[in-house]
């Protein structure tokens, strides 16, 4: 660059910020920092053990549980309820969501019903579930099923509504059958909206697990937490809650992998 007689000044850069950058280590670092601070607080005595047990105590409670051999009984019972409830709720939710998305009659009839029942806290319906499905596994699975059903319905028909009409018209113009259009154009087109719905419904399922296990459950992470709570065994309570948190993170990660695979055609 030839220098000008008056020297000139470079134009100041002002386009920074507002873009998402991947900063890998920060997430885990914050986790570690919070736990370390918490532990330190308990050790120094800033946090009274009655108010909040130290992470190390919660970890000890967890190890006790593992040593007693009950860990897998609790986790297994909960996983079973979660998986059965979530899968049934999701399958039903997808079916009803597609019906609402594809058929005007189903939309007119079911969409208002879904909107009316969606905001009801399913916990409030527990007594009814017990009467309907019994005190055993039925009512527990039903609670989770109902909880996952509604967000799936809403995400699914929202996704179907958002499929590019131009692509559907293209399918029609090439004489594709109705079933082909649904399977090859509408289903993959709705997927980017359905998969985030899975994230929400999975989180709701975990939230409802504790509620479901309030119904006379002997085993289950929720039951373990409830028992610990009623005994004021806060170390066990924190251990149980941490297990749910880990479960949630794992499920979220699995859905993330699924999104990456199924939506690999996106940028």
């Amino acid at each position, binding site marked *: 660059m030839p220098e000008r007689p008056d020297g000139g000044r470079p134009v100041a850069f002002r386009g920074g910020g507002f873009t998402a950058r991947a900063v890998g280590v920060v997430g885990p670092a914050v986790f570690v920092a919070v736990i370390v601070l918490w532990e330190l607080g308990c050790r120094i005595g800033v946090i009274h053990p009655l108010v909040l047990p130290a992470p190390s105590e919660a970890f000890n409670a967890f190890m006790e549980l593992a040593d007693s051999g009950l860990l897998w009984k609790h986790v297994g019972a909960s996983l079973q309820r979660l998986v059965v409830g979530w899968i049934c709720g999701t399958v039903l939710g997808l079916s009803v969501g597609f019906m609402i998305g594809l058929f005007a009659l189903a939309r007119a009839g079911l969409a208002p019903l879904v909107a009316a029942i969606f905001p009801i806290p399913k916990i409030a319906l527990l007594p009814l579930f017990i009467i309907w499905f019994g005190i055993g596994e039925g009512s527990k699975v039903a609670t989770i099923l109902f909880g996952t059903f509604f967000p799936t319905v809403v995400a699914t028909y929202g996704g179907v509504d958002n499929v590019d009409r131009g692509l559907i018209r293209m399918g029609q113009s090439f004489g594709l059958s109705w079933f082909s259009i649904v399977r*090859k154009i509408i289903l993959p087109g709705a997927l980017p909206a359905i998969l985030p719905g899975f994230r929400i419904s999975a989180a709701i399922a975990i939230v409802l697990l504790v509620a479901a296990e309030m119904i006379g459950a002997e085993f289950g992470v929720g039951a373990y937490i409830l028992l610990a709570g009623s005994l004021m065994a806060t170390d066990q309570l924190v251990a149980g809650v941490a297990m749910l948190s880990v479960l949630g993170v794992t499920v979220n990660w699995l859905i993330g992998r699924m999104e990456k695979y199924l939506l690999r*055609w996106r940028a």
Partner: protein
Amino acid sequence: MDLHLQRISHSYGPLEVLADLDLAIEYGQIACIIGPSGCGKSTLLRLIGGLEKPAAGQVLQVGEPPAGSLNPLTYIFQDFALLPWRSVAGNVSLVLEDHGLRAATRARIIDDVLARTRLSDFRKAYPRQLSGGMKQRVAIARALAVKPAVWLMDEPLAALDSQTRELLMDDLVELWTREPFTACYVTHNLNEAVRLGHRVVVLSRRPGRIRTVVQIDVPLAERKERGVELSQQQHHLWELLREEAQAADQELLNA
């Protein structure tokens, strides 16, 4: 196969878009339809291909489509309409899958049309990886795969930059020269119309009626060299359109 449009009228609610249109699209020729914006060109094309029903009048197929035609009336869309979750080959395959063809036959057709549109090296690419021009060539390959009797082209080059548009026009001329096809080509670009049209149908502003039909006798392959003649034609078309375009421009939208 020819297409005859008989007294086509159409309206959206109180808004009359097309009025009393008679037109013949003849075998082996490209009929370009031009007109001011909002004159119902795209509506007309949707009516011709059966994606919409005219309020009055009818579109008749005269004669049989060529043997082996899987989809006699085939569109090329302005926005390409490719499935983003399918590769180039997958997008072509889509339109073959409902016809009970054997996998080997499908593969042969796909290979053939990708070779004819020079896309063989890109068969595994996803649409997001392709430029606009490439996407439209995929759409052209997809249309070739079903052996259309009549191509219905809705501003196929409007979403492309002008250099890509030139290239694609050359491609279309080459395709036509090698194997003449019948097409109804809607555009608002007069240059495209005089480069590709055997006949140019000029529509009036809304409600669209046929103002004139201009015949261009220069063979498609020679048009690039005979630029002077073409620019005279183009000028003539613009004279025909100018007033209509001006009036259309002054109209309120959704009046």
